[in-house]
């Protein structure tokens, strides 16, 4: 067996298009997932039943179903309920964002709950209301503790973006498939895709380990 990456390199423009697609869906899902997660996380933390119950149902449902099922549901099932077509990007981004929102909501909640009661009491003693205490005292401390878990989430989102290829969204894996089927070189094409993902993600994974170690030392 002779490896020949020439046929992959000849198609590097196709891979570049795929990489742009991967980065685009990653960015959308990262922003939507983490910000929606913050809202849901607040809901999970609320004492009001009308906020707590829907937020909890959302988190449990999206954490306990496979993300691929969610993507396919948004792609094949949602258009029947809606008067408009759902594009591959929209379906995949919806599935991955909502899934990430559910997971990050739990990260936010755990982070907020990890702050000692005394901090709340101290803020109240200074005359702050709940919102001021949350924004000025609790969140700034909690966010520091959440950073490693949120970094992990971001890495997961990047990996999950490959699932968009199942609804034919143009990203790296989808382009790898295309190259493999046009040039009959699945070994080189899929190896190249795997290496690209590894090279992009490895520094971030190492950084997340370092962050975790540092946080453990600090506390």
């Amino acid at each position: 067996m002779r490896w020949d990456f020439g046929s992959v390199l000849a198609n590097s423009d196709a891979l570049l298009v795929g990489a742009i697609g991967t980065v685009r869906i990653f960015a959308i899902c990262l922003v939507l997932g983490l910000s929606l997660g913050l809202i849901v996380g607040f809901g999970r933390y609320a004492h009001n039943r009308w906020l707590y119950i829907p937020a909890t149902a959302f988190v449990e449902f999206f954490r306990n179903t496979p993300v691929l099922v969610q993507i396919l549901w948004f792609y094949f099932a949602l258009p029947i309920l809606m008067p408009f077509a759902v594009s591959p990007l929209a379906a995949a981004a919806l599935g991955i964002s909502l899934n990430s929102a559910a997971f990050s909501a739990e990260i936010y909640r755990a982070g907020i709950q990890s702050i000692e009661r005394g901090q709340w009491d101290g803020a109240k003693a200074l005359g702050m209301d709940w919102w001021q205490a949350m924004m000025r005292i609790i969140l700034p401390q909690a966010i520091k503790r959440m950073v490693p878990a949120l970094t992990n989430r971001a890495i997961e989102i990047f990996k999950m973006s490959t699932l968009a290829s199942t609804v034919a969204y143009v990203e790296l894996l989808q382009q790898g498939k295309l190259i493999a089927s046009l040039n009959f070189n699945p070994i080189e094409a899929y190896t190249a895709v795997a290496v690209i993902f590894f090279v992009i993600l490895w520094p971030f994974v190492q950084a997340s380990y370092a962050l975790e170690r540092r946080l453990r030392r600090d506390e």
Partner: protein
Amino acid sequence: MYRWEFSPVIANADLLAAGLLNTLKVAGAALVLGVALGLVLALLRLSPRAVASWPAGFVIEVFRTTPPLVQLFWFYFALPLLVGVEMTAYMACVTTFSIQSAAFFAEVFRAGIQSVERGQWEAARAIGMTRNQMLGRIVLPQAIKRMIPAFVERAIELTKTTTLVATISYADLLFAANEVSQKSFRPLETFTAVALVYFAIIYVASLVARRIELRLAKSGESTVH
């Protein structure tokens, strides 16, 4: 207003049940192989010899850092050409998810083993045990108890990941759903029903996991924070 009609889904319940069985088959096989291989990887990684710990670390990092769908495609489309063997979809799935989950289980094992206090090792050595005896009789029995919650969590993740096998046409529950929805022209009902089936199974498993976690947390032994 759309009228929901679940009877075509119920009429194809046997197809879906066969799919569910295949899902459990892949998940079960990958779980057993993944735990065994994960223990081996963890022991190699913890070994003081670089010849053992480096390759193990490399395998763990590669499989934790690349997307599982890319791994599955590599094992299904690339590996058979490289080594010249026929690879069925089932074999590709079990191979991929065994190694992939082994990489994660290895880290669970490592964290568990490292959480056992140094004094336990020293005491075992003091009464003349070899490294294998220390591991087998003293360290692992204590470590495993602490690893249970992380294990169950990983097993749940693995079950969710098995849905990827549908992309290489292995007839799991998700693949069956796709077939039924095309046959019955009822994608909304089919995918909703299948999502609920997954939810029911995984939710129950999550509840059990949380139970165990609470119990272990009470006795002060858990590696999940």
